């Protein structure tokens, strides 16, 4: 039995498993060509980027074979052991055809792959609370949701954009497919934010129905703790979002209102009814205005002029939300007139 005859049954069996690929029939050993495949890295080609195409075979030792590589019918590489080539993809709407012809003493085979670049961006933001006129991104915290949008750029070979409805979107979260939000035309999705301090890897794969065009995007989305900030609520200027109060602040006023802003909290507004504000001033609890619980007004007259404002913030149902803050505010006009021999037991009078 010749060596070719020994290889034949194995090649035929592998061909049945791998399936048919466009190939040139090999003389003498029918079907061996289908044992040769081309694999691309990265898996998803984007425009004007370098990709590497590898030749693989389960039957033929490609490192010992003479290989001729062609890109769009032009020979780009040739020789023994040349089992991969690198080339640069074209722009959107173009297609590159890469062929590899291998030849050994025992067999000849040809493999072909078509590379058509496509792109997709994965954009996201959270529905967590940010105050009006906040110009930064809303970042998710536990209990909030993440809105995502895939922005594919797919063109056919005529240069026309492929409509979203003709594209199949497959969403995955930490590798697991999200079937309910995947499907044709489903370019947007809303999913729960990761748990506290957690990070989710969200992937979206976009492809045409025949899979001739495919793209992929990935985003790592982390949940953060909401951030509690305190601002002056000035009678003339409104909430002074541009000047957050530090741990120690001096204000020129005798009476002033303050507003707490729970950035990235699971709430629709700062005065969301699901938020529970627990205010105290110099250790004494303060009843909040039920219509505006995020605000407190302090009248420092007849006091020491120094207020330690403490705030605890919790959520009715979201037990991950638990923040607190302490701000020491000195009321300068009161400090200037304070009697140094007077006791320091004078309480502040929060105005209700």
């Amino acid at each position: 039995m010749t060596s070719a005859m020994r290889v034949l049954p194995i090649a035929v069996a592998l061909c049945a498993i791998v399936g048919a690929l466009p190939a040139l029939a090999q003389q003498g050993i029918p079907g061996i060509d289908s044992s040769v495949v081309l694999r691309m890295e990265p898996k998803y080609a984007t425009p004007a980027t370098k990709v590497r195409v590898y030749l693989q075979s389960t039957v033929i030792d490609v490192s010992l074979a003479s290989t001729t590589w062609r890109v769009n019918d032009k020979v780009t590489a040739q020789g023994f052991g040349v089992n991969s080539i690198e080339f640069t993809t074209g722009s959107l709407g173009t297609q590159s055809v890469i062929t590899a012809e291998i030849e050994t003493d025992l067999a000849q085979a040809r493999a072909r792959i078509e590379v058509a670049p496509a792109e997709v961006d994965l954009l996201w933001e959270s529905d967590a609370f940010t105050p009006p006129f906040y110009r930064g991104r809303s970042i998710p915290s536990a209990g909030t949701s993440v809105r995502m949008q895939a922005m594919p750029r797919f063109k056919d070979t005529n240069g026309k954009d492929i409509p979203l409805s003709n594209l199949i979107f497959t969403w995955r979260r930490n590798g697991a497919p999200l079937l309910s939000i995947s499907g044709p035309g489903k370019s947007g999705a809303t999913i729960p934010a990761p748990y506290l301090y957690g990070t989710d890897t969200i992937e979206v794969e976009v492809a045409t129905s025949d899979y001739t065009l495919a793209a992929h995007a990935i985003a790592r989305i982390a949940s953060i703790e909401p951030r509690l900030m305190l601002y002056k609520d000035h009678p003339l200027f409104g909430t002074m979002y541009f000047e957050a109060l530090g741990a120690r602040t001096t204000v020129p006023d005798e009476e002033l209102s303050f507003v707490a802003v729970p950035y990235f909290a699971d709430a629709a507004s700062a005065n969301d009814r699901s938020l529970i504000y627990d205010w105290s001033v110099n250790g004494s609890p303060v009843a909040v205005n039920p219509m505006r619980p995020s605000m407190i007004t302090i009248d420092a007259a007849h006091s020491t002029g120094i207020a330690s404002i403490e705030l605890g913030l919790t959520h009715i149902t979201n037990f991950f939300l638990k923040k607190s803050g302490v701000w020491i505010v000195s009321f300068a006009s009161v400090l200037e007139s304070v009697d140094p021999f007077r006791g320091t037991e004078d309480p502040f009078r929060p105005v209700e």
Partner: protein
Amino acid sequence: MRTVIRIMKFLLAAIIVIALGALGGWYFFLKGESAATRSIDAARGLGVNIPSVQNPTGSTYTNTGGPFTPLGSATSAAQTQAERAGLLLRLANLLTLGRWGAGTFNIGAGITELLPFGGGGGNATTTIPVSLPPQLWRVSPTPSAGIGFVGGTPTLYFAERSTGNILSADPLTGTVTRVTNTLFPKTYEALFARDGGALLRGISETGSITTFTGMASTSAASATSSVATLMGTTFPTGIASIAVHPTLRSVLYIVSDGTSSVGVRASWGDAERKKIFTSRLNNWKIHWLADGRLILAQYAADSVAGHAYEIKNGVFIPVVGDMPGLMILPRTQSSAMLYSTSQGGAVRLFAQVSPTATPVELPIRTIAEKCVWLPGAGLVAYCAVPREIPTRTYVNDRFQGAAPTSDTWWRVDVSAGTVEQLPTPNDQPLDVFSPLVSDGGTHVAFLNARDMSIWVLRISE
């Protein structure tokens, strides 16, 4: 008997003297108390006329910020002289129409200065005589809602945050005049069209964002004053983001229904609405350039990838993307762009002269929103650069008012790849926010994010 009568006379005289003394003491006591009461009342503003009729600016611009006084060497010579001149000198100067007494005579300033609470006739065209402002001029110390150059000149319009009143500042003469007196309390954001149209934004009682566009109209103003009324249109509430076209009187805004957002272009009166784009996301910053290009950039956050797109016929065409903490500054009539990134406490600024060119990292550490492109042929930008990036999450902290910086101005020649620090004669820390450049490229106006005061930097000599 005579002795008794004498004693009685002495007693009577003594009683009279004591009574007179007591009355005198009481008189001086009451006088002192009255003076104290008057001073307290004056300090509280009792009896003070409405500020808007005292001077060209009025309102909280004067109340809370005091009269206009440029910093440094530009302190008004006329003002200083008037302050130094005594009452008699000024009175003599007034009676002799300036021939005697104080060296100069200003009929507008002279009379009102002598009146107890200023003059009664408001006139928006009256100017406070000052010398040329310094290179770095603090236009207004009070918090402002926004600024805008109008009329193709360095004239700067700004809206008071407290009243929504619009005032005009001329960086060439250092004068500040009132434009409108229509009250829009607690205006949080103001944008201006080149023709002077104003867009004011605030927060309603329910917490929604309100938007109003208008033009100063003198038809409703009184005959004795050219201070105008802001007449216009109230937009639907809930507009998340809005931009004014630099030359056309048009707006482009984003409204959301909770599941998706729509970009709408409309006229100044919110007519002729046209849907420009739709998106599932809401956090978009709009860059609407004078050449008509519309570029959307995702709101930035530290270490979070951002993307920017140009919108053409409703299609999102990528400009730059997948950059952490991305902020962009596109340039009109050019494909050049500045963009910045922020990740792990590292803030980096890049320049890209064309879409296909390789971005070049600039040797200054700042965000693109602190820069302005200079008009003209060259690719020159002015950037405010923090002396120190105060936190590792600078972008987030900045938006939350928790990372004030102290900036210096730099000139960036993108074509030549050079940067040069400008000498800025000011010791006050400035955290540059929302900078704008005048059409002629002579002045850069900005807000100081520390207190939202308004500043103008003269960049041409």
